[in-house]
C-alpha cells in the first residue's frame, strides 16, 4: 500500500510541477507595466555595478519595468546573440565594445538607433548608425604594490618577466578585456604575437571567463597582477582611500575600449528601446558610470567628475584596430591564442 502511495505521489507531484512550470509565463504576460529587456554583462548588473541605479532612474522616468539579463562578459553577449539570432528577446544590448561592432552588425539583428547622439564625446570621435557609446576606458595591467614593488615597466617587461609573479587574465572568447589584451598584444607584436603569448602564458595564474571573476581573484590576493583598466585604481582611491593598487604605464601605449549599446530589430517595435538609448547618453545615466562601472563617461555629466580620474595613468599612445580588421581576424587570432596558451 505504502509503495503504491509513493508512486502515486510522484506522479501527482510531477504533474503539478509541470503545470507549475507552465503557469508563470501566462501570469507575467498579463502584467500591466510595459517592459524593456536589456542584455548586458555581469559586472554591470552586480550590486555594486551601475545596474541597480540605472534601473531605478530609468523606471522613475518611463513608468515601465527594466529587466536586465546578464551574461558573463561582452563577448559572451555577442555569442548569445549569434545563437538566438532573430529570435532574441533582447530589446537593447548593452556592453559590446567597438572591437565587436562589426561582427554584431553582421548578425543582422540590430536596427539603427535613430536617436540624436550629438551629446556623445569619446576619443577618436566614434560615430555609428546602430551602436551608441556609453563609456570608454583603456586596458591596463593593474598591480598590487604590496605584493609587487617592481611592476613591469613595459608590455615587453610583462611578457618576458618572472614567471613566479602571476597575472590573472580574462578569456578572449567570452570577455572584452580578454579580447582587448589579445588585440593589444597583436598591435604591439604583430606576427610575433604567438611567441609573445607563449612567453606570457608562463605568468598566467588562470584565465577567467569574465572581468569580475578576474578582478575578484586579484583583490583576494591570488595574484599580484590583473588585466583591467587604467580607471580601476580610481575605485580603490575613492572607495577605499588607498593607492595600494595601481595601473602600470607602458611606453608601447594602452588599448582603447569604447563600450556601446544597440537596439535590436525586435526592440525597435518597443518605444522604450529608443527612450533607453537616449537616456543612456543623458546625465542621469552618465553620472552613475564613473563611480560604479569605473570607466570614463561617454557624454556630459551633471557635475564635474571626481578629480581622482585626472590623476590616473594617461596612455603614452592610444592603440585601437578598426572594427572590420578585428571582425576579419578575430577567430584566427583566438586560434593562435589557444594554441600558444595550451602549450
Amino acid at each position, binding site marked *: 500500500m505504502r*509503495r*503504491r502511495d509513493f*508512486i502515486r505521489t*510522484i506522479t501527482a507531484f*510531477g504533474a503539478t510541477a509541470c503545470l507549475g512550470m507552465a503557469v508563470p509565463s501566462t501570469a507575467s504576460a498579463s502584467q500591466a507595466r510595459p517592459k524593456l529587456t536589456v542584455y548586458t554583462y555581469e559586472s554591470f548588473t552586480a550590486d555594486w555595478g551601475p545596474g541597480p541605479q540605472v534601473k531605478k532612474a530609468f523606471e522613475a522616468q518611463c513608468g515601465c519595468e527594466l529587466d536586465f539579463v546578464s551574461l558573463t562578459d561582452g563577448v559572451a553577449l555577442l555569442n548569445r546573440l549569434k*545563437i538566438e539570432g532573430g529570435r532574441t528577446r533582447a530589446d537593447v544590448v548593452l556592453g559590446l565594445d567597438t572591437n565587436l561592432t562589426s561582427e554584431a552588425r553582421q548578425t543582422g539583428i540590430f536596427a539603427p538607433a535613430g536617436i540624436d547622439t550629438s551629446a556623445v564625446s569619446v576619443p577618436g570621435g566614434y560615430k555609428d548608425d546602430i551602436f551608441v557609446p556609453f563609456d570608454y576606458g583603456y586596458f591596463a595591467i593593474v598591480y598590487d604594490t604590496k605584493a609587487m614593488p617592481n611592476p613591469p615597466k613595459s608590455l615587453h617587461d610583462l611578457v618576458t618577466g618572472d614567471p613566479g609573479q602571476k597575472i590573472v587574465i580574462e578569456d578572449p572568447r567570452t570577455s572584452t578585456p580578454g579580447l582587448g589584451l589579445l588585440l593589444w598584444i597583436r598591435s604591439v607584436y604583430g606576427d610575433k604575437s604567438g611567441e609573445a603569448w607563449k612567453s606570457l602564458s608562463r605568468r598566467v595564474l588562470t584565465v577567467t571567463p569574465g572581468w569580475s*571573476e578576474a578582478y575578484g581573484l586579484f583583490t583576494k590576493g591570488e595574484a599580484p597582477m590583473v588585466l583591467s583598466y587604467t580607471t580601476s585604481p580610481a575605485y580603490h582611491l575613492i572607495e577605499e582611500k588607498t593607492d595600494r593598487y595601481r595601473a602600470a604605464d607602458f611606453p608601447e601605449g594602452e588599448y582603447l575600449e569604447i563600450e556601446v549599446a544597440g537596439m535590436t530589430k525586435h526592440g525597435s517595435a518597443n518605444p522604450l528601446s529608443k527612450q533607453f538609448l537616449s537616456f543612456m547618453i543623458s546625465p542621469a545615466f552618465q553620472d552613475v558610470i564613473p563611480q560604479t562601472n569605473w570607466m570614463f563617461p561617454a557624454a556630459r555629466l551633471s557635475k564635474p567628475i571626481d578629480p581622482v580620474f585626472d590623476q590616473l595613468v594617461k596612455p603614452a599612445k592610444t592603440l585601437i584596430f578598426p572594427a572590420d580588421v578585428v571582425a576579419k581576424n578575430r577567430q584566427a587570432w583566438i586560434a593562435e591564442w*589557444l*594554441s600558444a596558451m595550451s602549450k
Partner: protein
Amino acid sequence: MAVGDEQMNKARLPMRRRPLSASLAAGFAALAFLAVLAGVALIGLAWQAAGQGSGLVAAFDPYLWRVARFTLVEAGLSTLLSVVPAIAVAVALNALPRFRGRGLVLRLFALPLALPALVAVFGVTGVYGQHGWLAEIASVLGSPSPPDIYGLTGIIIAHVFFNLPLASRLFLTGLASVPAEYWRISSQLGMGPLARFRLIEWPAMRRAAGGVAALVFMLCATSFTVVLTLGGGPKATTLEVAIYQALHFDFDAGRAVALTAVQLFLTGITIALIGLAGRPSEEGFSIEVRSVREDRPPPVERTAASVLIAATTLFVLLPLASVLISGFSADLGKLLRQPAVWRAVTTSIVIGIIAGALSVALSLALVAARQAQARGNAGRRGRHGLEWLFASGAGLILVIPPIVIGAGWFVLAIRFADPYTLAPFMVVTVNAAMAMPFAVRVLRPAFDTAAARHDRLCAALGISGLSRLRLIDLPALGGPLAAAFAFSMALSLGDLGTIALFGSDRLVTLPFLLLQRMSSYRTSDAAGLALILAILSLALIAAADRSIVRERSQ
C-alpha cells in the same frame, strides 16, 4: 483429452501473446527514445560537419591535439594515482577485518560516488586551495604555501578523491572472495607480506584490476565538472570541456564537431577495453564488504595498514568536512530568503522528479522487454540479438557522453529555434538517459526474480498487460523502483554538463546557480548552496540504499 488440450491451447495463445507484445512494444519505445536522443545528436553534428567543409579540417589544429593529449595524460595520471594506492588500501582493509569503525570507513568510501562533482570540487578547494585548510596550516607554521591547485594538480586531486575509495572497495571485494583457508595456510607457512601479496592477494585482485582501471580511466577522461571548475584556462582543458567551450564561448560548431569525433573515438576505445578486461564486479557498489581473513598479521603489518587506512580516511573525510563546516558557517538564513535560491531548488527537484520518473519508466520497459524476449527465446535459437539489445541498450548511452548529446541537439536546434527554449526538455531527457544504465542495473535482478515467481500464476489466472503491471509487478517491485528513482533523481540533481550548455537566466538549476556563485567568487553563498545540494543528493542516495537493503532482507 486431445480436444480439451487443443481448446486450452487456443484459449492460452492470445493470453500469452498479449503481455509479450505489450512489453516488447514498451521496450522498443524505450530503445527508440535512446536511439532518437543519441541519433539525432549525431545527425546534428554530422550535418554541421558537412556544412563546415574545409573548416572542419582546420579544426583539427594543434590546440585540438593538445586538448586530446591533456585528456589522456590527465586521465592516465588520475587512474594511476587512484588504482595503485587503492590496491594497497584494499590489502590494508583486508588485513584488519575487525576494527572499530571499519563499517563506517567503508560507508565513507561509498560517499564520494554519490556526491555531485561540483560539491566535491568545493570540498577539495576548501582543503587544498589557495585559501584552504592546508594553506592556513602552512601559513601558521611559516612554511611556504602549497602550490596552486588550478590545473592538472587540482583535477587529479579531485579525481583521486572520487576514484580511490571506489577502486579500494572494488579490490576489497576481490580479496573477500579468497577462501579463508588461504589466509590460514599462508600464516602457517610463515609467508611474509610480499610473498602473500604475490601469491594470494594480487592474483585475487588481478582479475578485477583491468576492469577497475578502465572504469576509472573512463570516468576521468569524461569528467566535465571537475575540469571545468579546476581547469584554469586552455592549458588544462579536456575534450569534454573544450566541446562545451567551442559552443558556449566561441559559437564554433566546426571545432565542436571535430572535438566530438575525437572524444567518441576515445570513449569507444575505452569501452572496448573495458569489454576486453571484463567489467569489475558490481558487488563493490553495495555497502557491506565482509572479509574472511581470520589470521592475525604481525604488528608491523597491522600498524602499516592502520596508518594507511587512517590517511586514506582523512583524505576522503577532509573535503566532506570542509563542505559541512563552510556550509554551516555560511549565512544559510540569508541564502534561503533569496527567491533565486528557491527557484533553483524547485527547478532542480522538478527536473529531478520528471527525469527520475522517465528514467525508471524507460528502464522498466527495457527490463520487461528483455525478460519477455528471454522467455520467448527460451529453448529457441536465433533472435538473441533483440534480447541483447534490450539488455545492453541503456549501457550504450555511456559511449556517448551527455555533453556530446547536448552539443548535437544544440547545433541542430540553432537552425530551427532558440536552443534555450529547448532547455527544460533537453535537461530532463539527457538526465533520464544518463541514469538509465544505473536504473536498469537496480531493476533487472528484482524484475527477473519476480517474473520467475509470478509468470505461471499470472498465466493461470489470466492476468496480463496493464492490470498485471498494476496488481502484480509494481507492488512486488516497489522497493527497487523507489531505489532506481531516487538514484536517477540524485544523478539528475548533480548534473552540470547539460545545464551548462543549455542553462540560461530562464532555467537555473541548483548546480548551475552554485557554479555561477562559485565563478563570481561569492564563496559564502557557494558554500551554503554546496551544502544544500550535498544534503539533497545524499538523502536520495540513502533512501535508494535503504530501499535496496529492505528489499533484500524481505
